[in-house]
């Protein structure tokens, strides 16, 4: 079966100027990723890891400089340019939900817009459709007449989700859709997303920095560091026994009740303009050996489900596979 999305050796270099010199900033470097229909995958990484650029590549908004990015076996940019089908099938919930909604439009107008644009239903059917979508995300029908400024952060996110679902997509891409919310609204929203994924059979691509959120919502995980996916696999397996030292550090950094305060990593993420030779994580890696500073490891299979970009993966059973 053709995977829904397939990225092969995707590289994206942005040209920047520093002190009059032209430099290449490699936001994505050797990204390999396969997403099958109906999957739920979390893209996890810290700022500067390339999550947002990867998202733009998946949505066809940024063409890769090198490598191929395919949607159902065809280049994403080409599929996107053909007609509205791609935009209709792949819906997006933006990180800044409030900023993504026109403040001068009511909720009704905001949700009607994609209904009309994609010709989902007739104008006469639209009001009923809007109310059905609001009900689906747990909002009362009265909300239709309100403006985003009259609503709480959690409600605005729900409106953004309802708007994304209006085009009847098969893929929902969400960028930090629950971050910055209070824990109770966050929990409500996560339960909603879980339910929607199960009921509508959505493929869910979820960008987050929170491993707890990733494990709650997504069956698969891809952990990024400085423009490369350094580990992928089933979320629980990866988090229970990370193979890549960076994945392990990220796992240990997550706050845990009454555990001693961990400080798993020293230093900070290096600049993507000035990548270290060899493995990009070697400068901060507690397990780095001499060859790590010479050879840049690609993302390679450890077993049927898992892959890591590490010369010396941590999980013993994977050694020499």
């Amino acid at each position: 079966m053709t995977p829904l999305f397939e990225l092969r050796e995707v590289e994206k270099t942005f040209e920047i100027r520093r002190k009059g010199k032209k430099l290449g900033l490699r936001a994505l470097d050797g990204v390999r990723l396969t997403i099958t229909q109906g999957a739920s995958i979390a893209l996890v990484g810290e700022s500067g890891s390339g999550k947002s650029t990867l998202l733009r590549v998946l949505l066809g908004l940024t063409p890769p400089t090198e490598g191929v990015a395919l949607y159902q076996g065809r280049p994403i940019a080409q599929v996107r340019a053909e007609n509205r089908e791609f935009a209709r099938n792949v819906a997006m919930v933006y990180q800044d939900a409030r900023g993504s909604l026109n403040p001068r439009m009511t909720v009704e107008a905001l949700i009607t817009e994609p209904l009309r644009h994609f010709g989902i239903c007739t104008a006469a059917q639209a009001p009923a459709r809007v109310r059905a979508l609001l009900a689906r995300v747990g909002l009362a029908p009265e909300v239709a007449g309100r403006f985003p400024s009259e609503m709480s952060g959690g409600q605005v996110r729900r409106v953004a989700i309802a708007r994304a679902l209006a085009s009847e997509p098969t893929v929902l891409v969400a960028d930090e859709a629950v971050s910055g919310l209070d824990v109770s609204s966050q929990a409500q929203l996560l339960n909603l997303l879980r339910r929607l994924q199960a009921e509508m059979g959505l493929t869910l691509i979820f960008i987050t920095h929170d491993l707890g959120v990733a494990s709650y919502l997504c069956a698969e995980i891809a952990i990024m560091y400085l423009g490369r996916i350094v580990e992928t696999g089933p979320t629980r397996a990866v988090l229970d026994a990370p193979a890549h030292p960076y994945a392990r550090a990220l796992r240990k950094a997550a706050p845990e009740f009454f555990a001693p305060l961990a400080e798993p990593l020293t230093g900070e993420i290096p600049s993507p303009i000035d990548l270290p030779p060899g493995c990009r994580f070697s400068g901060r890696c507690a397990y780095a050996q001499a060859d790590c500073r010479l050879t840049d490891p690609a993302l390679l299979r450890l077993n049927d489900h898992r892959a890591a970009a590490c010369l010396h993966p941590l999980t013993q059973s994977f050694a020499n596979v």
Partner: protein
Amino acid sequence: MNDILLDVRDLTLDRGEKRILDRVSLTLAKGETLALVGESGAGKSTIAIALMGLLGRSATTSGTARFDDQPDLLSLSERGWAALRGRKLAMVFQDAGAALNPSFTVGRQLASVLRRQLGLSKFEARSRAVALMESVGINDAEGRMTAYPHQLSGGMQQRVMVAIALACNPDLLFADEPTSALDVTIQAQIIRLILEQTRARGASCIFVLHDLALASQSCDRIVVLYAGQVMEAGPTEVVLRDPRHPYTRLLQSCVIEIGTEDLTPPEGSVPPYDQMPAGCRFSTRCPRADARCAAERPPLQPVAGRDLACWHPEDAA
């Protein structure tokens, strides 16, 4: 009790018709770390701002806040504040990028605090500033003195903020969500830095946090707030291992850790200020609430090793 540094009694704060804080009481011993936790609108940051004397004119307060040898912070004149703020009391803000002045180098911002508060000469202030930058873990402190805030990473900016806040060895440091704008691997570095530096100075610290797990890892005591009222307060171990207030329980049940299977968040949201019940403000969402809860405010009183404000507390876990 001589070792009490801060004793806040019935702090009430109104902005127009809105009662933002409703009779908040808390105490803090010398050298202790306290976490203020709760969701947005709980009044965590407002408490810190009120105790730093940074409230605008639109707010009116009642109650008292004894601090060290000051009988009441809340009735201090602006002049009285000027002698305390920055010296005895200091604050680390959530967004260091916004709190630092973008037009001046970080070295100049740090040195200006030392010159103004401690009356150091330009030369002395500079060398002290370099030493402070080193003490908060900034490599090449000498070189970074001439950096503007935007030239530093978020973690480095927050380190500079900590250095500025600790410049005059305050007795009490407020840290308002000091790490929520930072990446997780940097978060622990900054929390540890604040704990180490305040401990080394024998100072107390009040953290404003929304992450209960982080509070359990970093603070001696915890105050759980909801819509401007204290729900439960006590040693972190006691409160979070065996919460007795229905709100604390619900808050804890919303925390996602790796491997969490199910979340059961409370329905609804905090009522608007004009619809707040006269009694316990959590009563509109509380599974245990009855008519009395909505009408009559439960007093904060000792129960099982902590202070609790609830008519129908939960049983031991």
